[in-house]
């Protein structure tokens, strides 16, 4: 079966990690029960700068590249129109119709697939972890609900099948594909580089009615989503004035401060620092959770941390069953002492 996958590129023209995961799942689906079909990628940006080695290593055989002279920047409905055209364009210069269209469950991927679902009248399965062909032209899938706290088994009867792929899907596979982004490009056998088609979509005024203007970067600093160390503060911090030692510690560790929902809903810290289901999902080496009980909505945002250390007065707090290490005690005593010890260590 032929599978079409929206591939998002970052500002340096690299494939974003979430799209690598989507490609890994799309590749498995394309290679499915009825014999191997092509994996087709759709990109928006200059075709000359496409990371073809990475796309080839991810199993992509053909890329449909929409150049900036055709469509500049992000316009969700227009992107969906492009996918709809390619998925259904038998004999019109596009691939001979795609059995499935996938995208990463990012803000953009989710948005574009929702438009695609609305335009084509098809259902969209959001946040999928697994998809496989099932009898009767249907698909059996597993998707996340409650930000991953619950799994749904479902059957999708869409043609094409539309789905977004969770950031938690096949982490190991995507990691392997991601390795291609660094030094392994040369290891890709010659001939596996995908064929690039410069795609010229026919777009209407209505498709371009909503388009994004990207403002300047929010100004330096380590971002919460990509920080290597996150020092978390929860209700136990006690108030807006209690964060100074946490900031100091984060600074010493080259990390940033993240907070729980109660902290932002009390107005102690801005929402941009919130870790959790309705905030930011973090993936640090270390999450040092101070005065955080570990409600499941919070764990949905920090469960992907490699290591968790909890500092909490309550040895029975839920976070204790998710942390690797714990210090039982008041963060107001522990954190300043830790800061002092690290300073002394130099």
């Amino acid at each position, binding site marked *: 079966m032929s599978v079409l996958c929206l591939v998002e590129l*970052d*500002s340096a023209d690299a494939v974003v990690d979430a799209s690598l995961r989507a490609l890994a799942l799309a590749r498995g689906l394309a290679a499915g029960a009825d014999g191997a079909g092509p994996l087709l990628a759709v990109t928006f940006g200059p075709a000359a700068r496409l990371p073809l080695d990475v796309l080839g290593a991810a199993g992509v055989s053909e890329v449909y590249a929409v150049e900036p002279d055709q469509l500049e920047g*992000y316009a*969700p409905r227009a992107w969906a129109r492009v996918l709809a055209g390619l998925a259904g364009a038998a004999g019109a210069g596009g691939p001979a119709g795609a059995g499935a269209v996938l995208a990463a*469950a990012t*803000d*953009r991927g*989710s*948005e574009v697939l*929702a*438009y695609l*679902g*609305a*335009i084509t009248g098809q*259902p*969209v*399965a*959001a946040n999928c972890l697994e998809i496989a062909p099932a009898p009767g032209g249907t698909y059996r899938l597993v998707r996340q*609900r*409650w*930000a*991953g*706290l619950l799994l*749904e*088994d*479902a*059957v999708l*009867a869409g043609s094409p099948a539309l789905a977004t792929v969770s950031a938690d899907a096949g982490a190991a596979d995507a990691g392997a594909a991601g390795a291609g982004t660094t030094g392994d490009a040369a290891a890709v056998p010659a001939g596996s580089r995908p064929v690039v088609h410069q795609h010229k979509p026919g777009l209407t005024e209505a498709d371009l*009615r*909503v388009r*994004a203007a*990207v403002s*300047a*970067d*929010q100004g330096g600093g380590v971002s919460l989503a990509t920080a290597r*160390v996150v020092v978390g503060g929860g209700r136990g911090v006690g108030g807006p004035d209690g964060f100074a030692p946490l900031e100091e510690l984060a600074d010493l*560790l080259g990390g940033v401060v993240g907070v729980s929902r109660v902290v*932002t*809903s009390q107005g102690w810290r801005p929402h*941009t620092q*919130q870790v959790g289901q*309705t905030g930011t999902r973090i993936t640090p080496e*270390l999450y040092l959770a101070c005065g955080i009980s570990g409600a499941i909505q919070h764990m949905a945002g920090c469960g992907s941390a490699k290591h968790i*250390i909890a500092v909490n007065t309550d040895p029975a707090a*839920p*976070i*204790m*069953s*998710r942390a*690797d*290490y*714990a*210090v*039982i*005690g*008041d963060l107001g*005593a*522990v954190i300043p002492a830790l800061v002092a*010890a690290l300073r002394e*260590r130099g």
Partner: protein
Amino acid sequence: MEICVCVKRVPQVGGRIVVTPDGQEVDTRMSGFAISPHEECAVEEAVQLAGRYGGNVTVLTLGPAAAAEQLRDTLALGAGRAILLATDGREWGPVATAAAIADQVRRQAADGAGYDLLLLGNEAADTGDYQVGIRVAEALGWPCATGIKHLAIDGGGRVRARREYRGSEEAFELRLPAVITVKEGINLPRYPSLPGRLRAKRAVIEEYHPDWQADRLRMTGLRVPAEQRQQATVLGTGADAVPALVRVLEELGVLK
């Protein structure tokens, strides 16, 4: 400005989610219900906008009769009118939900006072489908912006909306009537006032009964993922634990 906010009744899950023995729904015998966090902010935004520009706020939900509870909660926050699209308790997929909402918006327009702005949460806390707002917008032919964390509307009906995007911001400009989905952080929702609560208690909730339609994404079962439960290694108590903590930080390689 006529604003309609769409909300969804979802279980208030606490420490853990429990699924019913038949694996078909979340066990809510021990939990309360609320609207999704993003939607609390949508209601707040609507009330603030109506305060700034005049006009009325309608709150709309599709759900069982018990969802009237959530409508009254939002009436207490300042919404003036409440509409229940009553279901028989079956789960509605995003396609059917969006169709029912779009029908209601058209009905309202046919009655004279059509909406200028539809506000929704970016995604429901439970199903997380990320698509009802866009499907409603497409059905109505209105522009839509999603995941919005800053919203401004000028007198000429021009909407300026911003959202976060990979550490920076994306800005959208669109014209009313429009659909906007918001994310938590766009504002700090207020608490209900006592007069608000009393008014909400007395308010009449309008009720309609849209037809259920099967979704071609059919849930066959729900399950809780295998837990990665463990027990943390306790390094010590209070400041006395700091030397052990420093050693662990060294081992993890996070010290500069």
